[in-house]
């Protein structure tokens, strides 16, 4: 029933569904904060794929190295630095503040990406 309410999404749906529920099961009126999401960036073919990711504060980005040699995901001003991510390994960064974090691979300066924390 709760799932149905969420699936409906609209206020009308919520009200109708809410009216059908017992008072103890009624959905909370206040908006529930969205759960943090983990986004994946593949490092493949000496490229960040996708090069641009848009996330929210609290969300995470996991870089997965699918190349047969190491890479890094290193942002300016010390925002984040994976250090070397070995072949087959991954590394996760959790964003706190909003901002556009441009990053590169220190081993391959042609590789560029940006994490947009919005």
């Amino acid at each position, binding site marked *: 029933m709760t799932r149905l309410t969420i699936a409906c999404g609209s206020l009308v749906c919520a009200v109708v569904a809410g009216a059908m529920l017992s008072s103890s099961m009624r959905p909370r009126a206040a908006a529930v904060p969205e759960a943090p999401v983990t986004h994946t960036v593949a490092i*493949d*073919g*000496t*490229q960040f794929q996708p090069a641009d990711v848009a996330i929210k504060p609290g969300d995470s980005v996991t870089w997965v190295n699918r*190349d*047969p*040699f*190491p890479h890094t995901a290193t942002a300016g001003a010390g925002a984040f630095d994976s250090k070397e991510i070995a*072949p087959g390994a991954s590394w996760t960064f959790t964003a706190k503040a909003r901002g556009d974090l441009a990053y590169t691979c220190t*081993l*391959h*300066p*042609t*590789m560029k990406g940006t994490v947009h924390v919005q």
Partner: protein
Amino acid sequence: MKLQVFVVAGSLFLPVSFAAAQGVNDAQIASIVVTANQVDIDAGNLAKSKAKNEEVKKFAQTMVTDHTGVNKSATDLVTKLKVTPQDNETSQSLKSGGEKNVAALKGLKGAAFDKAYIDHEVAYHQQVLDAVDKTLIPSASNAELKALLVKVRPAFVAHLEHAKTLQASLGK
């Protein structure tokens, strides 16, 4: 002067041999890939110890690490495919060209070494990239071998661009 002669010789060497490599089979491609990587690993190992410039040293380490990784992938794949790398004109030419490069580099030191190493890395990656595009990828018949070449190609582009950036900075 010695350096200039070497670089010219080096750039004449490869296209001729690669031109003769049209229609190579997968066993020959495997040998060319492994040799091409090994040649750059050998030069990188020398440069790691002899280079003066810190950025050149780091680049050399990246070359050793990356080409070792590519060779491991290539070796794993040919083992799985039960392909025995077959020596051929191109792989032999790459090997002798690499030996000549290392011999020439051993006679240099300091900034002259750095410049010669990086100049060769620019020419070498450009030539290997041309071979990958014009000969190796078009000739590869096994889909996994072709996919491996396609997957590692951007690394060679990144190496070439990195080497060109260093070349420009050393020239200042």
